[in-house]
């Protein structure tokens, strides 16, 4: 037997998914080990080896592909625990990173301080050199100055160096030379230059991106190299792969130098999983939501593709490399409720976390959280949380609900819980609207994929609220990200400024520039061991009306760029502008700003196996009933409980119902229709609002 293995390290559990050569899926979970995440990873793999009855080394030897989503890069940034890093910039411009373009995220909040500086001013150096906007050298590089800086930072115990000079995106000669000089003086340092990470105008965004890369890469590199050594020693015959923010995967060795590409390593896999679902379901438009304990991540998949953003922020640092557009809000099972001074019920953004957790965890939590509301409403089974490993405190939960929320509002515990449920849903529904309606997509053309432990409890209502007709709860909802990893391909993005009037674009020079980027991508893929035959290339142009400052990215048709094809590109630009902003100006001149190229190395995959069709009627999966509150009745009704493990393809029934799995609970609202598909996924046809 051969295996493909995906491993996602979460806050509580390390999730493993194994697909064998027959296409069968197995799920493995083991507690995460935050001090050294590789321990939890190895433990999970060992669990899998035991399941397949193989020696650990034998099992590793049978692995064709091991993909890992790591939060090391994210956490290094979120906790500001990167290495001591220096910045080299053009003399007179070393402060761009800290000036942040005078941006303040929350204008009205006077007490919002700047984020901690990842490179303090004392470690930011200006060196004499200057290019103009065309990339012409106005002041040559003072090489001796660079050497002095390198020697000085070496003496100060710096481990990483970021380099960002003005206009290096048009001409990288100075940045490249600075890198050489620093490496000569200080060979141990990790050096990252902006023209290699983000070859694009706007020095603040570039400096921030390269600074983040320098700051986090050494930590990620240490982690990945250590893991590689351990896995190799234990018998893994090949390099493992790491998921990237852009939805692709990269070799661990490439990742070690490109930490900034791994900032969304975990959640991006959820988006890839969504994309994969779009394929197997034959339904190209999905909104994937992943609700855990503290956050709610939303990604939109349109025509089988997720969108990328070049404007993400991590730990309040701007990151300009392409990342899947994942919208995150602080809403989860642990979000705490309270009554504000105006008597308004609010939920979040504070979270109870895992400790003390919601009141029902009985670990000292006193203020009701979303999970408590779900328990009071009957959506959760107190005796079957985590498959019954973790009994919930019903009485304490009711009491807190009544005391802390009900009494101040003059209502009972059930109404209070329902209030919390509605408020938290409304925030999540807004998040769904942000990625759909606000970007010009009609939610009625989408299905909602509910993942994460808490997602399926809220999904039906969210869909109803936003107008999404169907919800899919994947069989592997709770390990959705790990599954997504196995569907990823190697992927690298390149960008280069290409600023010209669109009607003056020279097809030959454009083609040549694309070709050069393609060669660079091929070389990287070759190092990662992908044969040329499986390579795909996507070409894009960032375009705008002359005078605008923000671009619309337009994909180019396949094949060589020729004169005749450019008209269609312009038409596509006008159409996209109209969809996004309610109007276009087809008679106005257009310009190109950047050219973008994505290179993909396809990884072979086994198709998922379908499950056997149901032999017994759905009613046989009913394991009991419970009093559950639904808005439609304004009261509790006796509601059947289905055992998720016993549901099989072809099963069909109507809400209200609760479907209980070990790691989640699916709330089926009155009027919803349930259908189990060929892969064991639960599909809800949601009753329309009103």
């Amino acid at each position: 037997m051969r295996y493909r293995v995906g491993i996602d390290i979460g806050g509580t559990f390390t999730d493993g998914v194994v697909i064998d050569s027959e296409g069968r899926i197995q799920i493995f979970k083991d507690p995460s080990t935050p001090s050294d995440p590789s321990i939890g990873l190895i433990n999970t793999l060992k669990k899998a080896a035991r399941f397949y009855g193989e020696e650990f080394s034998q099992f590793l030897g049978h692995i064709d592909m091991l993909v890992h989503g790591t939060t090391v890069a994210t956490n290094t940034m979120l906790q500001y625990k990167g290495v001591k890093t220096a910045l080299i910039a053009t003399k007179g411009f070393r402060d761009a990173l800290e000036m942040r373009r005078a941006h303040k995220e929350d204008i009205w909040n006077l007490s919002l301080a700047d984020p901690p500086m990842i490179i303090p001013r004392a470690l930011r150096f200006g060196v004499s050199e200057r290019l103009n906007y065309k990339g012409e050298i106005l002041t040559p590089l003072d090489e001796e100055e660079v050497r002095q800086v390198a020697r000085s930072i070496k003496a100060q115990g710096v481990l990483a160096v970021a380099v960002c000079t003005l206009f290096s995106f048009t001409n990288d000669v100075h940045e490249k030379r600075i890198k050489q000089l620093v490496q000569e003086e200080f060979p141990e340092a990790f050096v990252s230059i902006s023209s290699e990470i983000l070859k694009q105008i706007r020095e603040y965004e570039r400096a921030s991106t390269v600074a983040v890369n320098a700051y986090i890469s050494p930590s990620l590199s240490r982690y990945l190299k250590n893991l590689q050594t351990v896995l190799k020693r234990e018998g893994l015959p090949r390099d493992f792969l790491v998921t990237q923010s852009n939805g692709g995967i990269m070799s661990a060795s490439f990742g070690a130098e490109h930490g900034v590409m791994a900032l969304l390593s975990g959640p991006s896999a959820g988006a890839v999983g969504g994309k994969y679902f779009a394929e197997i379901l034959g339904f190209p438009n999905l909104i994937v939501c992943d609700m855990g304990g503290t956050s709610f991540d939303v990604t939109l998949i349109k025509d089988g593709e997720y969108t990328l953003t070049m404007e993400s922020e991590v730990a309040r640092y701007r990151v300009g490399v392409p990342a899947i557009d994942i919208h995150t809000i602080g809403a989860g099972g642990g979000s705490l409720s309270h009554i504000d001074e105006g008597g308004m019920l609010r939920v979040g953004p504070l979270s109870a976390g895992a400790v003390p957790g919601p009141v029902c965890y009985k670990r000292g939590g006193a203020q009701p959280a979303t999970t408590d509301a779900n328990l009071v409403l009957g959506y959760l089974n107190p005796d079957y949380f985590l498959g019954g490993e973790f009994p919930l405190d019903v009485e304490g939960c009711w009491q807190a609900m009544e005391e802390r929320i009900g009494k101040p509002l003059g209502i009972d515990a059930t109404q209070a819980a329902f209030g919390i449920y509605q408020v938290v849903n409304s925030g999540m529904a807004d998040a769904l609207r942000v990625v759909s309606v606000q970007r010009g997509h009609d939610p009625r053309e989408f299905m909602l994929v509910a993942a994460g432990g808490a997602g399926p409890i809220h999904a039906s209502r969210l869909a109803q609220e936003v107008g999404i007709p169907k919800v899919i709860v994947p069989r592997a909802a709770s390990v959705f990200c790990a599954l997504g990893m196995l569907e990823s391909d190697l992927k690298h993005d390149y960008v280069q400024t290409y600023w010209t009037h669109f009607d003056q674009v020279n097809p030959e020079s454009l083609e040549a520039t694309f070709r050069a980027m393609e060669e660079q991508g091929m070389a990287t893929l070759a190092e990662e061991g992908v044969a040329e035959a499986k390579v795909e290339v996507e070409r894009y142009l960032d375009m705008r009306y002359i005078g605008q400052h923000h671009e619309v990215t337009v994909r180019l048709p396949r094949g060589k760029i020729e004169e005749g094809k450019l008209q269609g590109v312009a038409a596509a630009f006008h159409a996209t502008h109209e969809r996004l902003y309610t109007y276009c100006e087809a008679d106005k001149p257009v310009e190109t700003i950047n050219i973008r190229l994505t290179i993909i190395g396809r990884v072979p995959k086994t198709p998922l196996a379908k499950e056997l069709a149901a032999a017994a009627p759905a009613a046989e999966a009913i394991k009991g009933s419970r009093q559950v509150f639904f808005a439609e009745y304004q009261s509790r009704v006796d509601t059947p409980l289905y055992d998720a493990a016993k549901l099989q393809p072809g099963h069909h029934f109507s809400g209200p119902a609760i479907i209980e799995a070990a790691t989640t609970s699916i709330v089926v609202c009155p009027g919803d229709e349930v259908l189990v598909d060929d892969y064991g996924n639960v599909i809800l046809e949601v009753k329309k609002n009103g």
Partner: protein
Amino acid sequence: MAELRQGDFEGVSDPVTVSVVFHRLLTINKEMGITMTRTSRSPIFAEVHDFSCAICDWVPRIVAQIDGVPSHTASSMIAAKAVRDRFGEDIRPGDVFVINDAYSGGTHLADLTIIKPIFYQGELLFMAINRAHHLDVGGLTPGSYSPLATEIFQEGIRIPPLRIYRDGKPIMDVIETLCLNTRMPDLFWSDIKAQVASCSVAEKRLTELTDKYGPARLKVILEDIQRYAEKRMRQEIKKIPDGIYEGTAYLDGDGFSATQVKVQVQFEIKGEEMYVNFDGTDPQTTGFINSPFANSATSVYVSVLTTVSPDVPHNEGAYQPIHITAPEGSVVNPLPPAPVASSTLDTACAILEACFMALSKAMPNRVPAGWNRWCGPSISGIDPRNGEFYVQYAFCGMGGGGALPFMDGLSYIGDGIDLGGLTAPNIESNELEYPHITAFHEFLPDSGGAGKFRGGMGVRYRIQFLGEVAPTFVMFGDGKVNPPYGLFGGGTGSLNRPMLNDGLPDERELPAKGIIALKPGDFYSVYSSGGGGWGNPLERDPAKVREDVLNGLVSLESAKNDYGVVFQDNLELDIAATLNRRTAPLKGAER
């Protein structure tokens, strides 16, 4: 729907739905802003975000306003009312209106407010507002900040409430009249279209919202949102001790005379009500610092909204308990035809400072030390690289923010009334866009006021102009005489210092307001104000002072003289000498 009535919370019948609708309105409001940023042509919108969006109800009262610069807070709502008063029943679906005149409901002429009424089944339910600062609306000098203007007629085209779209289509003869009165007609019209697009996005979304709740129910909810905001604001005011609190700030001058201009404000807190008057404020001036009442009221609201709890909604309900009066003919409530162009920056900042000074006596732990005032030029001319006319403001010369009792001020954050709402362009975008080369752009050491918490840093910024023809160069700003104030023992921030050709034999310090003749190849530098400090600098943690010294933000001299912190030769703290120095003043010795 569950009935979630709170016993003592009369009025709001259904807190959950009210909360849901209110947040939906805020989301729509933000989407208006995104549309504007993404589609507009002028860097002042797309890069700098010098605009704001708001949603009004049918009255019209502002319901939701979260996007955009604080300096537009109240002025947008007054503009909407002006349209309603002028057109009354003649407001129809498919209409779009514009207004800019300071004496008809606008503020300075460069701020064009676009108002789109939104109907549902024939009934006026909402008005979407987009207020944006256009680079040129005519007048004496390009950029429409003219220090020589003595009447508003010289500051650009005056537009009363005016219909510019009918039945969803632009009324081109009217548009052309407006365009003819600016130096940049193409840009002007394109940017108006972007403003209208942002209102159209709101129209789409608000119609969907009304589909969902129905107009009758929605109107009840909108009333509840107003009531809720008012209630929240009343609770916040009630927490402030009753009493009379006064504050004063001075403007350097009006550009014609060096006489300082006084802004005097008095807050009277009486239970849940707040009475604000400007008695004692100087009369209106010859030059362009006169602040229309809408602009003055905005500054008062900003001072209150930023010091009370941040979750009070920003809408008309919240302003109900705040009663503002200002003497007619004063610099904070001028009579026509006094010029007003610079009031949205200079005077608004001074009013905000006076209000903060007053409030600091009532709420000592919530009010910041002084923020910087704007000081810089508008630069215009023909770009020698492409022959096109351009107007640019030197935004990269922003200064620092004031310290608070728990944090240092923000560095390079922009003037007080904009509170960090303006984003600075990149040096690269600027050099690509405009014919100049930047020599340096970095923090200015010792600019932040000393304090237990230090003021934010100003910057040093220099640009040299390209080409054989010097650009037109107009200074508008303040803060060369009056620095950002310190609070509770904190030091003042540095003064703004604009210079021409500094370091060369012909160097000269520039006035804060004035038209300056340049020669080709001249360079302009600004050393911008840092923010004021908070608390006694001798109480600042010496480790923080050391960090500032290592970071080159505070000099060794300032560390010693202002903070009483002494270093050894290796830049380690000399703790004994520091203690000695810090206690010395108590013994009456020289500090």
